[in-house]
Each structure stands twice: as C-alpha cells, then as structure tokens.
C-alpha cells in the first residue's frame, strides 16, 4: 500500500503540467472571486421601497417571483417624493427600487443613457424619473412635468402602475388646493394626505406556505460569495483528481495493474491507494488555496479563514475523488475529462451556487438535493447564524459522499476487471 502511494505520488510530481494546475488554478479562482464584488442574486425584500446602492445596480432579480419592478431615479428625494414612492410601494403590486441621485448632477443625457441601459441590459416593468424640481412642479399643478414614466416591458400591469401614479399625483394636486398658507407647503400636503391615509383600513399581508431564510442582507451577500467561491475554488480539485485517474488508466493499459494484482494486492487496496494519492494532492492544493485566501477579505465571506479553508478542502476532496473515480471507471482520458467537467458544471448549477433555485420546478429541487455544494451552502448558512451543528453535518456529508464514491469505485473496478478476464 505504502509503495503504491509512493509510486503514484512520484509519478504525479514528475508530471510538470500538474504543478501548473496545483498552483495556477487556485490563483485564477481567487482572482475571479475577487473580481466579482457585487451580488444581487440572493436578496429577499420585505421593505416597501428598496434602496439601491447606486443607479447602476441591476434590479432584475428583485422580480424573481414575477413581481412588477419599478426602478426609480430620484433626483428630488424630498418628503413629497418619498411619500409618493411609499404609496406606490404600499399598493402591493409593485416592487419599487429607488436609486437616490439627488446628490448628483443629473443631465438629460444621463437619464437617457440609464434608460437605454435598463431597456437592453436589465429587466424591469417600468422606470420612473423624478427630477429635482418635482416639488415645485407639483405645487404649480404641472403634473405632466413633475415626473416621467418610461415603459420598459409589455407587461399588462403597466396600466395599473399608470392608474396608481395618476391617482397619487391627483391626490397631491387636490390636497395642495386645501392649503391656504403658502409656506412649507409640501410638508403640509404630506401631513394632510397621511391623515387621510390613516382613515383607510390598515392592511396586513401574510404569505402562506414556505418561509424565507432568516439571513441578514449582509449574510445573504456572503452566502452568494461563498457559492461563487465553492464553484471557482473546486475547479482545480476536479482536474487534480483527473490527473490521478490518468495515472491509473495508464497503469491499466501498460499492464502495471495486472502486475500489482499478481502481487496479491487487493483491488480495493489499489483503489484506496489512489484515493490516498488524491487526498495528498488535495491537501497540497488546499495549502495553495490557503495562501491565496490571504487575498480575500474574510469579511466578505463571513467566517474565519481556517473554517473557510477547511470547507474548501472537504468540497475539493469530494470532487477530486469523484473525478478520479470517473476516470478509472471510464478508462478513457477524454471521456473522463469531459464527463467530470460536465458533472462539476452541472452540480454547481443545480446546487444553486450561481443563482437561487427557489422558483425552480420540483424535479430540479430534487436534483439539487443530490449536489454536494447545495449541502455545503446550507452548512455555511448555519455557520453564519452560529449553529455549531454545521461542522458535524459538513463532515458527515463529506464522509457520506466519499463512502459512496469509494465503494462504487472499488466494486466497479472489480466488476470491470472480471469482465476483462472473461474476454481475454
């Protein structure tokens, strides 16, 4: 056993290209991870008006469940404009995403550019532009100059938005006439209207079935970051396992495997020795990842560095064993590389590492439950909220996946072996 491992390691270390991957892949992954700084995919909103960090932020994901999104460019940000947006949000049908641009120099050109971007690079129901002189125009009764609505979809709910906007603007217009005093008019209008609003029955909304996770906004961001980290950082491990498999395939083809069997070494022992090799390579790669992780700000990930590295190691081990298993089973360099890569690609997708799968069909959710990343994401979520059971769970999951892969590998190798004996 020892000799087998030593031999495999020696052969691996001699392959120059594997060094390139052991060192280069984690670095590349880390760079990719660092390059992605903003994530919107996991946001779940309960507020009436979503405040966007900047006018450039994309809003498409706020409509993940088919909501009608209104992106608002608010250059005014007065009490009156805030009241209007609150009422729009309160109506329930629209998800209002507001970008506060009152501090900015707003030109027609800027708005034109933004709207064009929204129309072609993002997805939303409509966009609203509230110019800086919104209050004055409303007080002058020039409703049609007070704000502009840009229809950016052929959604039938656009009519409802138009009606609601018209209603709210007319209400402000009417309230204005009630006020006799000329000073601090806008505030008074808002107060008057709010007292009217208080007379309508209060609304309560209860969502039936299912409940969202209870992560904070920051933790949601971190979870998204982790999802990306999982997929990027494990890619290198996938290839590492594949190199080990390549050695095993060559050993089978050159008759080394037959000789090993003749020395009364069990097939399982042989397979186990390959696994230990994978394990050692994974440890090596994890070392590189740990060094690379110095580049990542751990606040972005939301856990301490050792835990982060440990999680990456466990995931990496699962994937490198898997790719080794596929390689040995398929006994074909290309088939194996293509199959493993595809498998990795698919599992990242279906685990929901890149985007939430909450709205996907049942079948997809079942597939998702089979993916290791899905459980690791769940584990990180638990670590975020300080649940120590997460560690036990993650180790159990790793052991479970490894057990399945190894036993399948051992049995598969035996079966294939006896088949080949039959042929020859």
């Amino acid at each position: 056993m020892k000799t087998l491992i030593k031999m495999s390691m020696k052969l691996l270390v001699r392959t120059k290209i594997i060094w390139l991957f052991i060192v280069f892949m984690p670095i590349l992954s880390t760079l990719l991870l660092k390059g992605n700084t903003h994530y919107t995919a996991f946001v779940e909103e309960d507020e009436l008006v979503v405040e966007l960090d900047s006018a450039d932020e994309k809003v498409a994901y706020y409509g993940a469940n088919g909501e009608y999104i209104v992106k608002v460019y608010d250059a005014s940000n007065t009490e009156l404009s805030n009241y209007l947006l609150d009422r729009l949000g309160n109506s329930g049908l629209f998800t209002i995403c507001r970008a506060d641009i009152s501090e900015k120099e707003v030109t027609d050109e800027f708005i034109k550019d933004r709207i064009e971007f929204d129309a072609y690079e993002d997805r939303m129901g409509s966009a609203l532009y509230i110019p800086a002189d919104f209050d004055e125009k409303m007080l002058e009764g020039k409703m049609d100059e007070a704000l502009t609505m840009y229809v950016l979809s052929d959604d039938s709910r656009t009519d409802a938005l138009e009606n609601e906007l018209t209603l709210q603007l007319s209400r402000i217009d009417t309230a204005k006439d009630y006020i006799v005093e000329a000073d601090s008019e806008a505030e008074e209008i808002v107060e008057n209207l709010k007292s009217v609003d208080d007379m309508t029955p209060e609304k309560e909304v209860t969502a039936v079935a299912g409940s969202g996770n209870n992560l904070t906004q920051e933790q949601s961001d971190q979870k998204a970051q982790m999802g990306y980290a999982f997929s990027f950082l494990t890619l290198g491990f996938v290839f590492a396992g594949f190199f080990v498999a390549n050695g095993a395939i060559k050993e089978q083809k050159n008759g080394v495997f037959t000789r090993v069997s003749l020395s009364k070494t069990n097939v399982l022992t042989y397979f186990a020795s390959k696994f230990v090799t994978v394990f050692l390579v994974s440890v090596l790669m994890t070392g590189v990842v740990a060094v690379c992780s110095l580049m990542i700000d751990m606040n972005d990930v939301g856990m301490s560095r050792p835990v982060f590295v440990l999680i990456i190691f466990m995931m990496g081990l699962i994937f490198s064993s898997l790719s080794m298993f596929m390689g040995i089973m398929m006994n074909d360099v290309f088939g194996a590389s293509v199959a493993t890569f595809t498998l990795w690609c698919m599992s990242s997708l279906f685990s929901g590492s890149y985007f939430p799968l909450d709205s996907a069909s049942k079948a997809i959710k079942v597939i998702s439950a089979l993916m290791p990343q899905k459980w690791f994401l769940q584990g990180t979520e638990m670590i975020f909220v300080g649940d120590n059971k997460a560690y036990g769970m993650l180790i159990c999951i790793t052991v479970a996946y490894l057990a399945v892969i190894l036993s399948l590998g051992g049995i598969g190798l035996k079966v294939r072996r006896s088949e080949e004996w039959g042929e020859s």
Partner: protein
Amino acid sequence: MNRYIIKNNIKLMCRSWVNILLFVIMPVILVVCLSSAFDSLMKKYDDAEITAGYRVEGDGVTDEMIEAMCEVAEENDITLEEYTTGDPEELIKKNELSGFIIFEEDTYTVYEDKEAAELGKVIEYFVNAFYENVTASAMGVDTDSAKLAVEHPDFKPAIDSKDYYGIVEIIYFGWCAIVAGAGIFMNEKKYKIRKRYQVANLSSFNEYLGKFIPLAIVASVGTVVAAILTVVLLGVHWGNIPLSLLIVVLSVAAASAFGVMIYNITDNMIATIIICFTVVWIMGFFGGAFETYLFSSHPMILKNLSPIYHINRALTELSCMGSSDFVNSSFLYTGGIIVVCSLLAVIAGKIRKGGRA
C-alpha cells in the same frame, strides 16, 4: 494531398460517435434543466382569471361596500367568493384560491399564496386600490383630468427562458469542439503519423488545415444537429435562420481554431482539454451561458471581453427582436479568433517541427 487528409480525418472523427453524441445530448439536457430553473424569472406576466376568498369579521365594511367591491373585482377579472368558516391557509390550498382576504374592524389581512405570489399581489393591489379610490373620491380628487408624462422607449422584449437557454447552451457546447477531434489527434501522435507527414513533405500550414477543417466541419454538424433537436423537441425559436446559422458555424470554427492552437502549443491532449474547458467555462460564465447575462452583475468589461457574450447576445436578440447590434461584433470576434489562432497554431507547429528535425 490536403483534400485526402481532410476527408480521412472527417471519416475518423465520425467513427468516434460517442464524442459527437456529447455535442448533441449534453446541450439538450442543460437546456431542459436551466430553462426550468429560470422559468419564473424570465416568464412574462400573463393576465389570468383570479379567484380569491373573503370573509367579513366585525363591522369593518358594510354589505354595500362588499357588493361594490365584488362588482369592481368582476370588471377586473377577479372573482371574490365568500367563505364564512375555515382556516384561510387551508381554504387557499383546498380551493386553489390565489389569495384570501379577511376584513376586520379597522384592518384587513391579505393571505397570499407563496407559490403564486404575483397573483396574490394583484389581489392585494386590488383591495388597496379600491379603498384608495373610495377615499380619494370622498376627498374630491379628480383623476380624469390628470395627465402623466409616459414615454415608450425601445426596449429588449422579454425572451422566454427556453429560447434563451436553447440558444446559449448550443453555443457553449459548440465551443468544446476540440472534443470531437481529441481521439484522432491523440492517435496521430501515438502512431507517429506526423513523421509520415514530414516524409510526405506536408507544410505546417497544410497540416494545420488537415486538423482545423475536419474538426470545424464535424463539430459544426454536431452542433447544428443539436440545435435542430432542441427545435424539434422543445420548440426553441431561432430568429433569422440563415444569419443565425452563419454565426453558429463561425463560432464553432473559432472554437476549433482555438482548440487546435492550444493543442499545437502544448502537444498534450489532456492539457489541451483542460485549458480549453477552463477558458470556455470562464468565457461562458461571464457571457451568460449559465446565468442570463441580463441578470448577472459581472462588470461590463468582462462581459465584453468574452466572445461567447457577443455570440449569445447576437443570437438571442435575433431570436426575440429580429435584429441585433451584436451581430457585427460577434463576426468580428469569431473572425479575429479564427485568424489569430490559425496563425499561432501554424507558427507553433512550425517551431515544433523545426525542433524535431
């Protein structure tokens, strides 16, 4: 001479049909899965007949008001049914209601089904708007004379998730073209065919063409078959078919040139596959092969650098709008890749040959 190699290589590639099958089957599987995952996100909202239940508790609303509300609701394709007893959650599930409203003294509670949240929101909106209009008319608000500035700029119409992924995954797998030729290139090396080329005095350029042309042809055919399969099985819409076809074929040709270049440089098939897959995956990742490029918030510069982004965008826009500004840039990218990669591949081949001689 050259024609003979090309013909022979095509024949050999077609024999390793398992690899070619990958081109055809994998995209179909991915299209089905991804389009399902993104279905609700990309779905267009459709007006639906909505049925909601309600119950009045206390004296919050009068009979006349409920009657008026039901009438207005009917006009807006919402049916309100009264349920005097029962748990709202169970009633929603049992009667397939989109929502349930309970009117109490000074409040009302709207129960929305999470599975059909967008319909629940319509109900919520309806009740809210009803009350607002009542109080507004009490205030003497006149909405008829109000004018609102509404503009209708051009926008990219919503593309169905099936069409999107149906197109995008075909391109993505087309970029893995090198797989189709992997087997014969390996064997070429193993059985020392290249030495024989040398004896036959085949130039590096001809040797390159002998790899590139058959690979591009076989991979294109595989990709087009996959596309046809998705059209037949799933009903994916491709816009301008001749133009789209040209973009697809060029994109596969670019992928082939890229693959052969990497192979000529590394002279190692495993390394080639790994490098190609990594590069293609990264390009696909930023180019919208997995997460729709409309939604992803990767920096624009990274997207613009990815050739797959331009190809994807050109094809999806051709599908949903019939025209696209990205057609030219996708031609530019694929053309550029073919020329540059071919050049580098020939040079690399020449150096290798020189070194061996």
